[in-house]
């Protein structure tokens, strides 16, 4: 799965969880500062990513996923 495919899947999840337009979910965007995804929505995004991409994202890792690129790279590396 390419980074582009992961980004598209992640954007769909962020849209579903937080109601943010998928096209605004771009690599350089910060979940909290740019996309206004709060800490609880971030947990829902992470749980949905685990289901969708078949990866495990432990609690201790969630705080390191600041930008969309952080999440895409983590998923790509752990798939």
């Amino acid at each position, binding site marked *: 799965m390419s980074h582009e495919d992961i980004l598209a899947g992640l954007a769909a999840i962020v849209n579903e969880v937080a109601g943010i337009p998928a096209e605004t979910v771009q690599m350089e965007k910060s979940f909290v500062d740019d996309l206004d995804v*709060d800490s*609880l929505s*971030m*947990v829902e995004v*992470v749980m949905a990513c685990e289901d969708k991409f078949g990866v495990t994202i432990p609690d201790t890792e*969630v705080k390191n996923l600041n930008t969309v690129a952080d999440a895409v790279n983590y998923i790509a590396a752990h798939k």
Partner: protein
Amino acid sequence: MSTLKSPTTHSAAGLIGLGAYRPERVVTNDEVAARIDSSDEWIRERSGIIERRYAGADETAASMGAAAAARAIADAGLQPTDIDVVMVATFTHRFQTPSAAAEVSHLIGATNASAFDISAACAGFCYGLGIADSLIRSGTAKNIVLVGTEKLSDFLNPDDRGTAFIFADGAGAVVISATTTQGISPTVWGADGSAMDAIIMEPDSVQAGITHEPSHITMQGQRVFRWAVGSMGDVCKDALAQSGIQATDLVAFVPHQANLRITNAIVKHLDLPESVIVAKDIEYTGNTSAASIPLALDALRSSGQIKTGDPVLLVGFGAGLAYAAQVALTP
């Protein structure tokens, strides 16, 4: 070898009385927000809470619990002397010993009752329903008053952004008795002590006694949210499957009022029919731990949204990562 007698069993147990006690003082989001660099809007978005209530200085978990218990006993049409077990679910009672239940039984005049506490935090009320069901059907008890009561405001750090706006005070109670038809479904329950630091009151009371540093509740919010949202939907499905009724038969879903975001996420996972009312008492009550389910039941019944005999799905979950769920018929 001698053969000992066992009690004469009862064929069924159910809820026959309900009572609540909400302390007088309303605490707004603005009042709480000042200490945590927050706002009314921020608190509503993250928890659904609009306001909560705090008990007065002269009130305790036991005194509020007694008020709720007395109302539940009156609602059941019983006298306090008819009660043979007083069970209290709480973690904010003033004394390590004796129990809050002993104090409650004295305050309400339940002079014929045994009394003990349940330590299962926010799952305590649903734990208690399961225990009460077993005590009655086994013949050990006939009329039980089960109380959930908390004075959490005494154990809050008002500067902690993770907890200060969530927790509040109140009490609710039910009477469980031998009935002609079963009103409590099999209890699905469990706990995971490996995560005991996820929600904890620290320092422990021994340390607090030595250092004179007060104990406060701390919570790893994201971790608890993930556990509750990831697990409680399946626990509810299991409880419903064991109850013998379908989701379409439910009148209401009354989860522990932890956080409206958790409730909404569980509801999404459960895929409940639109007709099922979802309890949202947290909006005006906050998270009252062991008291939240009977308080929410009382709010739904008082407003006419549920009536006697209606099946409601209950689930409690919290510290110790203890959880319990069952279906009950509304008293």
